[in-house]
């Protein structure tokens, strides 16, 4: 639901879609293939400020808001809202995002390497 239009992140829409996607057959395939837990911190304007944490659990096939509570996620990413959208939609590849400093990564590098644009479903356009 849109509570207040000013507090909305673009990433919220993608995360919602991801949640639905993981319940589909293709989503279940993805879970089987990747089998990792990512935490994604999304900041409206600046990395590190007013971050909203999402857990994309590709072990259980779930997306939830808030920090991961099942231990340590395999990799944690930090983005600005805009940049997360760019990466998830394939407009910017994750390596480039990292080079630019648009993506901050903590955790296992091999886990981070599996974080690619194809894991997110693409929104269709009206």
């Amino acid at each position, binding site marked *: 639901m*849109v509570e207040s239009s000013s507090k909305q992140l673009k990433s919220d829409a993608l995360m919602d879609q991801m949640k639905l996607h993981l319940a589909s057959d293709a989503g279940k395939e993805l879970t089987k293939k990747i089998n990792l837990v990512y935490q994604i911190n999304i900041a409206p304007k600046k*990395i590190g400020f007013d971050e909203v944490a999402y857990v994309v659990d590709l072990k259980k096939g779930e997306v939830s808001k808030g920090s991961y509570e099942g231990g340590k996620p395999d990799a944690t990413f930090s983005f600005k809202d805009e940049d997360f959208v760019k990466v998830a*939609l394939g407009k910017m590849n994750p390596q*480039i995002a990292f080079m630019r*400093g648009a993506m901050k990564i903590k955790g296992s590098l091999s886990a981070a390497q599996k974080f690619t644009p194809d894991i997110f479903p693409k929104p269709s356009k009206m």
Partner: protein
Amino acid sequence: MAMRELVTGGAACAVPGSSSSSNPLGALANALIGSSSKEKIKEIPTSVPTSSERHFFADNDDHLGALDRSFVESNDQGSDFLRGFRSAGQGELSAAWDDIQRSQAPLPPQGRGSQTLIPELDRIYDRASLTRPQQPILDGPPQRVLSSFLHSFVDSSRGGVPFRPIPLPILGLSEGDKQCIRDRSSIMARHFFADKSEDFINAQVNALLCSLDIDGDVRAKGPLPGRFRELEDYWNESQDSLKHGAHAADEWVAEFNQQRTEHGDADAWAHSFEQQHGAIGWASEFEQLTSVDHMRGANISNFAAMEQTRMLANTLAQNDDPKFQNSKFLQFLSKMSRGELIIDDNQVKETALPASGDWAAEYRQQYNRSSAWADEFVSHGSDQWVNEFTTEQEQHGPVDDQWVNEFSKLHVQDWAEEFGRQVGEGALEEDSADNWASAYDEYLNEQVAAKNRSDTSRGLYVFSDMNPYVGHPNPLKEGQELFRKGLLSEAVLALEAEVLKNPDIAEGWRLLGIAHAENDDDQQAIAAMMRAQEADPTNLEVLLALGVSHTNELEQAAALKYLYGWLRHHPKYGTLVSPELSDSLYYADVARLFNEAAQMSPDDADVHIVLGVLYNLSREYDKAIASFQTALKLKPHDYSLWNKLGATQANSVQSADAILAYQKALDLKPNYVRAWANMGISYANQGMYVDSICYYVRALAMNPKADNAWQYLRISLSCASRNDMLEACDSRNLDILQKEFPL
């Protein structure tokens, strides 16, 4: 101007009885670039000081204070050359020169202003010129020996040859000079050898320092006591005088402190830079060798970038995998860390190392710039500089912020270490080196694309370069006709010709916007629709189209504003709107109003359409689907409505239904690029990548400018393991793709 004369070897600086290389900075410059360019250096104008230079020296005492004192006080053995230089005012300086020349004829330039040093230097001077006459590079006054020696170090670096210690005559370097050389050479070496190991770099530097009888460790890393206290005071002052810029200044200080504590080199760099901010000499050579970009506030981010990439390059270079060693990515990092590539305004730019022939021009440019920088930094007063930094940050906003922020917040070193450790453990998979390498190519491509697209992203309409419809007697009519026939890209050209002729024609812009939306280009659609709305602020179709496009772009606040505008300007439903609502829109209020409107006239398809868009915005897909289905009963031949239904179904993961709806839309309008692209998305989201590729290619064949489809195609190609086609995708070669993926 005395400083310039020092460099150019002007009259006031010449030491009688010696050649032009008696000027230490000029000599060093000559040594570094070869003697052939001596004449060119002399071409630098020596008579007319620029206004910035004048400021720099005239205000010297007032504004250099903090930095100067810290330098002089904390470094009693420091370079007298510099001390004398700074303590003098503008007029005094040249007078002092004259004095000294009269009384101390064979004075080596370093000794100026210091009585105690002179006898010793004279002795060294004599000895240096007398000993080892058989060795040309070690011949002459100390500064010439020094510059030849440093020159050979630079040469060996360029060739990648290990540098060997050379016995040198005693050069009489002061502690300050030694420290300067020590700091700078360690930094320079790291830039020269960014792709070599730390051990190699240390060996090179140690060979250099050993020859010069400089202790490689003492104080090489740590700040001199007192200096940073002064500098911090200085910064605190500037913050106090500038309340509104306090945040930016804070960040700078934080960044600075972090650099200081975390990075030995950066520390030395900052410190030597501080020491030399006005005087040029080494500093400008260093700049020239590393980055020819100007030394302004925003550029601090480039140092950060260089520093970061250097560390990354270092860690990555320790990976023995030859594939990785040869990767373009590593070369890229290495280049970037040497300053041959810089990131400016979020674009990668190459800063070709200047050929020696261009040196003089480069030098002059550099000279002006660095003095301008010093000027900003010091002479104009701290607040102005901070101001500038702040405004620059505000102007460039997110772009410049990126690197600066990253540097202060990202704990780059942790990352580099982490990266290095994991690379060492073989965490990178077989093909990941290739991934990184190809990322570099893509990065550059993306920069070009980003540049071309940057206007649209700012909401400006971007016209096609070549337009055959310019000069057409009635391009609007032609455009409408082409649009009706479904020739979208042609219609776009005709309509562009129309709006070029009549910039205020709402219908031309509106149809142009629709054509772009159907061509799957929302950025251009939004830009055109904004112009249509300017021309006709209450046009309902325009308001709806803007609401839809912003919803597609996930821009919720903007979408809500336009959808609300649709209701407000509707002749029938406008009465539902209470005026106080328009300031702060809440989704729930707007949705309630539309539901009221739908109850008022349940047979108005348009209300149901807007309601459907609104539910998409709140991601209540079931309600959205119901609204569109209601509307379709009233308007079964509206192809864009079928596409809206399909997109909504696809976003709520009902892909099979979505494909049926898209098919309906395409039956009604075969050239509907958006529906073709949406088909591709639906197949891709179901993991049917090969099918998706065929649809994307089909969409692109109709509109090669649909960037989204190109991006999605690339993803699908990788997922379908068709990396053999990535090159065709990257070069946008539709012939190959169409042949390979027929629909």
